[in-house]
């Protein structure tokens, strides 16, 4: 996946531990974002309408995670592994190209 700052690190896979024996002795590493996808926490998901997007990148600038990246075609995309659904992007978007929708899981 291309982002403005290069490739998203390969091998980022969510670790799902099914039994207590699989857990490490101490609560370390599990908390790294390579295995702990904070996008899990999301209730509302940003949906981007490319037709309304004017490529101002204000959403990219304001995203606190940062889960918004700039696609090769110049429009913006969302890294849903890490987007917590805070809605700041939708709030800041001057053309209302981003809407927050309830996510069905």
């Amino acid at each position, binding site marked *: 996946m291309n982002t403005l700052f290069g490739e998203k690190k390969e091998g980022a896979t969510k670790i799902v*531990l099914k039994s*207590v024996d699989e*857990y490490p*002795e*101490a*609560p*370390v*590493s599990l*908390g790294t974002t390579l295995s702990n996808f904070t996008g899990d926490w999301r209730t509302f998901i940003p949906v981007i309408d490319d037709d309304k997007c004017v490529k101002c990148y204000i959403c990219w600038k304001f995203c606190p995670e940062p889960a918004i990246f700039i696609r090769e075609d110049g429009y913006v995309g969302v890294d849903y592994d890490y987007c917590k659904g805070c809605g700041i992007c939708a709030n800041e978007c001057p053309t209302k190209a981003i809407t927050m929708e309830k996510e069905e899981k």
Partner: protein
Amino acid sequence: MEYKPVRKVVSGNYAAAYAVKHARVEVVAAYPITPQTSIIEKIAEFIANGEIDNIQYVPVESEHSAMAASIGASATGARAFTATSAQGLALMHEMLHWAAGARLPIVMVDVNRAMAPPWSVWDDQTDSLSQRDTGWMQFYAENNQEVYDGVLMAFKIAETVNLPAMVIESAFILSHTYDVVEMIPQELVDEFLPPRKPLYTLTDFDNPISVGALGTPNDYYEFRYKLAKAMEDAKKVIHEVGKEFGERFGRDYSQMIELYRTEDADFVFMGMGSLMGTVKQAVDVLREEGYKVGAAKVRWFRPFPSEELYELAKDVQAIAVLDRNFSFGQEGILFNEAKGVLYNTDAKPLMKNYIVGLGGRDFTVNDVRKIAENMKAIIDKGELDVEVDWYHLKR
């Protein structure tokens, strides 16, 4: 190398400082508080005199920071130590959870001191027992020798099970009173206590980790179970390390409850810490006078020696639990725990709680005799007069 102890006359606090030196502790972060101060002063003196090298002494601005710094040090893989008392320990409380939760084998000496108000600097176990549920192991020393031995063993046990441990000594009764302590030559301590092998380290840059990260409801529960199991496993490790200590240095700590003349005892006195030195002496006197009594000294309060208590309770008619502490709204803390352990067993000795020595109130052999007379009357009658007896109260 043959074991030839080096005998020194030291206070309990100096015994702790010597143990820190011999354990080759790498980081000491501490804040002074009476009656703990002379521990860290002595360590600072060792460092200033060049008697210890490869150690970082971090003078911090509060006990909360002392524990925070110890946690940071321990997370890098270093052997970390701190010491405190009473209000200082209370100020550390939040950080104690962080240390145990992250499974860091920090060793701390807590000099038992009464909680204020009224302001007090004297002996009382309520400060350490208030930290019962933080996930720290707790060892109660009876004398200066046990302070020294306790610190060395605590490091070995803590680093085996990856849990922090408190070694607890009595304010002034031990901390500032001088006694002969047999110290172990450095080479033999090194054999007993090799360098720490950490579970993980923050300074392994090829394998970066995050410590103290978020645990969602999906993961938190499992880590609590792991911690609970480590506490349970610690009992076996305590037994093994205590036994090894006995084989190497002649003082056996394999039992979590030390039994003194309990074989044919009708009833026993149970308690923790320096109190039990007096009780053991009283047992000798009472035996001369015809009482069939014994003493059961609880060395490790966490993990709690449930199995050993059950074995003891099977063979006696009654147990007098001496608590130098109190849980307000209930009863003495050791009494409460001991009764709880025995509820689902067949052993049902009469159990009475004596609240003694709070805030440094003197507790003597004569007091133990009076308690023995009271216990005998209870056993003859077959029922308790009161369950919780505020023994010293001016009536």
